[in-house]
């Protein structure tokens, strides 16, 4: 049994948080710094200025819907968000997040009692979101995706593989 003490804060959002809210198009030219500063401002103007490294975004259904822009996941990672826990994710966002090393978890348990600012922590081994009052079950990620996240995302993951392989073209993902 892993003992993890909740010590980060939950930032709680509703359903259908889209990629334009996560990475607004008009700041695309300003680089990830600028995008991150405006991340989610359409739904919570204080998010970017108040989120601390390790804090966890908790959301409803269909998180990350919209465009394929991976800056949506990158902005969250840039702000130091520790993980995103949602009832469901838009597929492209889900893939992008893992590729960029941002842990994303589908909540199979009920997250509706969580309030903004609640202390939370992810227990990866136990596939749960720990709160001060209990555990909320998460869908476990396949081992190779956890590996990729642990490596820091797809690029460092491939770097490791290519470095270990004499014939890079033969390397599987």
């Amino acid at each position, binding site marked *: 049994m892993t003992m993890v003490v909740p010590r980060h804060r939950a930032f709680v959002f509703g359903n259908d948080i889209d990629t334009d809210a996560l990475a607004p198009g008009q700041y695309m030219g300003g680089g990830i710094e600028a995008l991150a500063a405006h991340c989610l401002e359409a739904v919570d103007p204080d998010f970017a200025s108040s989120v601390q490294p390790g804090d966890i975004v908790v959301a409803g259904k269909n998180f990350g819907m919209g465009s*394929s822009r991976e800056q949506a*996941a990158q902005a969250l990672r840039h702000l130091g968000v520790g993980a995103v826990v949602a009832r469901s994710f838009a597929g492209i966002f889900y893939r992008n997040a893992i590729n960029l090393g941002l842990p994303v978890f589908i909540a199979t348990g009920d997250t509706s009692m969580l309030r903004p600012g609640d202390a939370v922590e992810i227990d990866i081994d136990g596939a749960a979101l720990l709160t001060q009052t209990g555990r909320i079950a998460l869908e476990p990620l396949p081992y190779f995706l956890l590996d990729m996240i642990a490596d820091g995302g797809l690029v460092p993951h491939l770097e490791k593989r290519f470095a270990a392989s004499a014939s890079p073209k033969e390397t599987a993902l």
Partner: protein
Amino acid sequence: MPQSLAQKIIARASGRSHVEVGDVVTARVDLAMIHDSGGPRRVEPILKRLGVGLYDKDKVVLVSDHYVPGDTEEGAAILQLTRRWAAEKGVTFYDGEGICHVVLPERGHLKPGMFVVGGDSHSPTGGAFGAYMFGIGATEMAGVLATGEIWIKVPETIRIEWSGTLGPRLMAKDMLLAMCGRLGMDGGRYQAIEYAGETVRGLGMQERMTLSNMAAELGAQAGLIAPDQTTMAWLAEHGATDLPDPAHWQPDLDAVPDELHRFDAETLVPQVAAPHSPANSAPVDEYEPTDIDVAYIGACTGAKYTDLKAAADILRGRTLAKGVELLVAPSSKRDQDRAADEGIMKVLEDAGAKVLPNACGICAGYGSARLGEDVTCISTTARNFRGRMGAKSSKVYLGSPYTVAASALAGRIVDPREVGA
């Protein structure tokens, strides 16, 4: 085991005789499509870091469409970088020819049974040709360009059957908005959609492309339409070679979809999606009088030849309502040329339309025509998220080219069936 079309394509691409829903497999990619925004400028630094080149330059197609026409210094620089990369790598490159989702099919690149990735969320468009095609981000694309492979979780299949014939002034866009309205934007939880039924078989390829494209709005990974004679005739006309036997790329008759939804084209009326989600779709006659400032006929789902023709059918011999701006950005140069040859572009311009470059334009949030504060727009594009096409205070309604053109005439959102022929 009976197999869905998605399973058949993924099985072939992953070198297996069959796959089960939920299997995670590594698949070989037959073609990778990239564009100027998420393409060279994003993938090249990663390829450099990995110290590798392209897995196969003949399996990469590059299109410039997001920053076209490069009317800012930044846009011009991105286009220049894109052109240099294309020349250096020797990949097929369509520069300013139109939107990637329209250009690839019209050049015969997408064929039944192919497993294709695109660096854009509307990549399911390839499903109209019986290809398993889906959108991925730039980092994942760099991985594909380096290795030729990608992991995929075999999706469940949602079968959406349409019966009956579309009435006058109804289009694929109305069908799709009706599906968004009923099923919601997460109606597809990254499943594969299979569009089927007589209504779908009765659609031309560009209309089918709109259905497949907006599978993204239904939350699906792919939006497949099994190939038929319409598909094969289009491919032959558009220079596709080595055509497969369409019989190989049909779902098994006894394959049971994980979900089945039925829609009736006979009872369908023109649909409009209210701000700020395609899922806010309702029959056009349910809207209170809604004045508009801008009408936009553009994007991969709304300004193909078929769409331009539909708009012209409404606008012929008429002029815009006072104070309304009609912007038309034809989806591809070829479609614009054909429309010009047939007098369609002249009809649009005579009515008062301003014609913009063959590119994504304001649908993708780029270009100089972005919507100002408090502007209300009705648009043929695929999505109407808050602030996507301009100021956060702007409002975007979605409708078919018929509905958008009719609304441009009236100055408010109207049923295109009220405009006489």
